[in-house]
């Protein structure tokens, strides 16, 4: 029996640009099961980031539903949404690390939110950074790290609170292809070995090809689903 982590039902999002409505999503139906690795592929402006913001409970849909672990997000208030975000591991295109914290501090930060103790935080942050291959970069600040290294820190941070899934918006969008491959290897490994459910947005066909499933979007709609190896 399958375990649905994320489900969207007829998801619509219309932005108002002044008086001009922009239909970024026009009814998206998507289902992500536990252990899945889904790549959402599409050209610029097709609504990928909009979809990610809705799935990540960062924004509210104009119409339709987002259901995470069986909970309809429209039934939650702001505080409950904040709590729900703790169970989502965000990875952004621009890393979004806190510049004044070192790698370890950045990984520790999400753990302060549920109120984990200091030594526990430290131990777990060290383990996570070790897992993503940054054992000897723990005390570097983001400015002292390469793009690939920053994205590894971001992945370690995303995993800090044992999220029920990783939500990545163009994780390789801002790094060169060689480093991008290394990041993808890490993500694949996390998915295969640790069973981390992953939703990844990209406009890079080759990167998307490494996922188990590929969902193609165009003009706010899913136009094609490809099951891969």
């Amino acid at each position: 029996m399958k375990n649905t982590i994320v489900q969207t039902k007829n998801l619509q999002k219309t932005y108002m640009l002044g008086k001009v409505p922009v239909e970024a999503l026009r009814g998206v139906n998507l289902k992500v099961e536990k252990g899945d690795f889904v790549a959402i592929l599409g050209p610029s402006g097709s609504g990928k980031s909009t979809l990610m913001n809705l799935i990540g409970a960062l924004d509210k849909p104009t119409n339709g539903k987002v259901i995470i672990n069986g909970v309809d997000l429209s039934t939650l208030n702001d505080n409950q949404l904040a709590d729900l975000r703790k169970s989502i591991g965000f990875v952004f295109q621009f890393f979004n690390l806190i510049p004044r914290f070192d790698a370890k501090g950045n990984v520790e930060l999400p753990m302060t939110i549920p109120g984990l103790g200091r030594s526990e935080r430290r131990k777990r942050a060290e383990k996570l950074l070790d897992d993503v291959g940054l054992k000897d970069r723990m005390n570097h600040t983001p400015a002292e790290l390469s793009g690939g290294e920053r994205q590894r820190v971001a992945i370690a941070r995303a995993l800090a609170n044992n999220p029920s899934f990783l939500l990545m918006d163009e994780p390789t969008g801002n790094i060169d292809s060689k480093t991008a491959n290394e990041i993808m290897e890490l993500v694949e490994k996390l998915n295969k070995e640790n069973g981390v459910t992953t939703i990844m947005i990209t406009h890079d066909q080759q990167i998307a090809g490494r996922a188990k499933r590929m969902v193609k979007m165009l003009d706010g709609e899913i136009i094609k689903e490809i099951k891969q190896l």
Partner: protein
Amino acid sequence: MKVNDIFSYAFGAIRLRKLRAGLTILGVVIGIAAIVALLSISQGLQASISGQLESGFATDTLIVTAGGLGSGIDGGIGAPDTGFRLLVNDTTFINELSADIELWTAIIQRSSYIESGENTLITTINGVVFEEYSEIYSNTFVAESGTISSTPGNEEIVAGKRVSDPWENGTLFCSVNDNVNVIWPNAAVRPPQNETYTGNVTAILQEIGGFGIGPSDSSTYIPLSQAQSFFDTDECEMIIVKLSNSDQATIDDVSEIITNAFNGQVSVISSTAVLSIVSTIFSTIELFLAGIAGISLLVAGIGIMNIMIVSLMERTREIGILKALGTKSRTVLAIFLSEAMIVGLIGSAIGVVSGWALATVASGFLGGGFSGVAPPGAPVSGGIAVTPVLTPVLILGAMAFGLIISIIFALYPAWRASKLKPVDALRYE
């Protein structure tokens, strides 16, 4: 987030911009320091004035002066001249008014010169009955050298400390046994002329310091009878009444009896009345000073608000990250308020210390100043030594005020930060 995590997060954010935080803190420091300095000096001044009034003005005495229309110093000053004069003989009349009156004595006062050798000094000549006066002011009308005779001859003179030693440089104007000329510019005759007699200094008073309505360092005392004949008058400037006790009821009672007996033509001043006026005046002054200092703190508050709005814009993305990681709005609010609280707390603490330091330095100038700058020949009645008073109420009040101002002005920016929508905050460039 745990409280200590919130604080350490806020502290980290402040430390990142040391100069900016320093300047914001400086604003609070100046405001609090101004409050503490002004209020502690003013409280010190009040304490020292009250103290000197108490010592220079025995609490069991009343002072009766002409020109009534009201009791107390406020009615006396500036009262219209009704032609009423207080006479030396009125003492006998006052005596019979109440059983609580123990002793009474009249004083004639004239501004005069005394001449000793080459030097001339301006002084207030007080015609007093030595025996009665020294009984009423037994703590202050005391000879340092020589003796105050209870049955003085007409030429006897008792000089205040600053009359004997006006320049405080080792050279004395006069000493015991010196003969001095008393010169009074008599303006009652035409043409005005100087009246003169030669007296003999028989006693120098010990230093009294400060001021009061009783004996003073810059006064000269001659027998009352001599004053009556020399100044050719039966009028006296005041009558001092010593009461059997210093209960407020007795003071009020006798004050009223005397005022009524003179048909409201006299003012009766008691030390408690003066003290209460002094304390009223100081409350007003303190309110005014606190208001001025408060304005500077208000400016500091606006500075905090300004800085926090800038910081809010700079950190919009950071707020977005925090929210994406699951931070609740109220935690974001708490982080921003903590930053203001840290600034307010550090600023207030430094402000209290530097305000206190400022007050101490400033009061050094104040205290030392008065007698130091007085020109020779015109001695004033000693300096007012002011020790700034820093009460726990003032310390805690100032700290709380600094903290509250900081928080109040941070409320709006903090609220705005907490209300940011995660998507908007993350998209912010």
